[in-house]
């Protein structure tokens, strides 16, 4: 087990090196990617400024609290996109139609690892950093303080959220095995994960249960931030851990099921 993890980490770092070389191979496009990411960041900030210039509170969040949430969402989505989507799950439909998935299945290394965590994307790193800056500004301006228990709970729930987002990505993207040419399925998965940027209060009644239990986007960003800012109790932690375990398990089973279908039906 430990051996296996260190082997996969070693391969991942090799791939990170390869990915870095590939991204910088075309220098102008690398710089362009970074500029695009910065553009997104600026648009997001303007968005917050515009909303809060009209109202002081949105579903109970002040402007600076909303900035913390937004910064956290930037960090979260950049991690998910950079690690699992941009060079990985997004290319799954293409790999299936071109038959490159066969090359993956031949390798003595886990196929889910190869399609979902193979090649990290580095140009999203600046956005991640700017997300952290936004979080710091939010905390500095809002005077909100947290204790060590809140902080550790926040970290753990945030990690659970990452695992859930990853699992949803696997499940939704794997549907592509049944729908040839459904190139947009990974995009759909991303759109679902992007819902996590909203404060949980925007989902009333039925929607709250849907986005807490079935498509648990609330656990990804809103819940950990609410715990960190004292809006929710640290006792949410076991719930988040159980949900992450369930989704990780389901996504693994679904991936293997989808592969079985692929190997029976493809030619």
């Amino acid at each position, binding site marked *: 087990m430990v051996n296996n993890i260190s082997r996969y980490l070693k*391969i991942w770092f*090799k*791939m990170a090196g390869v990915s870095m070389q590939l991204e910088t*191979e075309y220098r102008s496009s690398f710089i362009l990617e970074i500029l695009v990411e910065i553009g997104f960041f600026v648009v997001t900030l303007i968005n917050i400024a515009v909303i809060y210039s009209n109202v002081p509170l949105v579903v109970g969040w002040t402007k600076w609290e909303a900035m913390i949430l937004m910064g956290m969402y930037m960090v979260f989505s950049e991690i998910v996109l950079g690690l699992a989507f941009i060079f990985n799950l997004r290319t799954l439909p293409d790999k299936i139609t071109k038959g490159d998935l*066969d090359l993956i299945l*031949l390798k*003595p290394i886990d196929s889910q690892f190869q399609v979902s965590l193979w090649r990290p994307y580095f140009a999203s790193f600046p956005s991640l950093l700017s997300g952290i800056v936004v979080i710091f500004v939010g905390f500095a301006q809002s005077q909100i303080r947290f204790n060590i228990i809140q902080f550790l709970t926040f970290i753990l729930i945030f990690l659970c959220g990452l695992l859930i987002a990853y699992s949803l990505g696997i499940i939704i993207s794997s549907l592509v095995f049944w729908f040839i040419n459904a190139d947009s399925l990974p995009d759909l998965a991303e759109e679902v994960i992007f819902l996590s940027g909203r404060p949980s209060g925007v989902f009333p009644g039925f929607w709250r249960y849907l986005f807490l239990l079935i498509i648990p986007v609330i656990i990804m960003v809103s819940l950990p931030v609410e715990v960190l800012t004292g809006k929710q109790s640290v006792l949410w932690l076991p719930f988040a851990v159980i949900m992450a375990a369930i989704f990780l398990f389901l996504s693994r089973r679904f991936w293997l099921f989808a592969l079985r279908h692929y190997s029976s039906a*493809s*030619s």
Partner: protein
Amino acid sequence: MSLISVHNLQKFYRVHQKEPGLSGSIKSLFHRKYYDVKAVDGVSFEIGEGELVGFIGPNGAGKTTTLKVLSGLLYPTSGDISVLGYIPWERKPAFQKQFSLVMGQKNQLWWDLPAIESFILNKEIYEVPDDQYKQTLNELVSLLEVEDILKVQVRKLSLGQRMKMELIAALIHSPKILFLDEPTIGLDVVMQKKMREFIKAYNRKFRATIILTSHYMDDVKELCERVIIIDKGRLLFDGRLDEITRKYADHKLISAVFSDHITRADLAKLGTVKEYDLPKAVISVKRAEAPQIAAKLLEKYPIEDLNIEEPQIEDVIREVFTGRDLA
């Protein structure tokens, strides 16, 4: 002992039928008629260690499907298959480390990086020890004569150079079994020949078991003592290459150079005229009658040169596939 054992392999695909036009498309959304395509239908064979076997058949014969089942990419519909003692489609890493599948039309190398980067990555994936990696790489590099292009980006290599690099990437873990699906496709004649020499040398040197599919008869003729012919998912022939001629060609070719005019009609009385381009002509005759007919020709007509030949293996195989009578 056989390394690969295939017993009664069947692989069917379910496909749905669609009526033409838009109305057909809409109808097929709600109600679909399915039927089975029999890609492989009851194929059996055994392959022993160190064999180099040619796998031939027209497009859609089931060659690639069979290779994909053997390498664990496809679940068969039915049949008992064992490769190196493993059930291929369980895709156990211990099994996957012992074979390689090279598909002429697919590449695993990183396009924008030098090939050496892909080799290093494969070394990690296949857990090849450092010493063994260095030794294997050196051997392959000198066999294929690619020392000077290891550090050139793959996109800047020619197709032939790229194929050599693909082979190194596929062989860096010293597989016991090598499946080659159309390895010479698209290569020029010189490069095809080099590739063949390499495959032969690799087979001898490392006692690797190799199954090769190819459209080029030359590949098979030069490399494989044994061939397996499949068509429409069924096994037509399994044996030595030269046996094909004996089994399927019940005729021989008599080619003659005439020093005087002879009409096509006269030749047609003796056998089927295959070529009529005076002074040269070729007729096809029943195997057993070849000597008598040749004697008759020599007796009746002025002839400068006469040969009795076995038909070309390509022709025999083509005739087998089209199911036509040869004589």
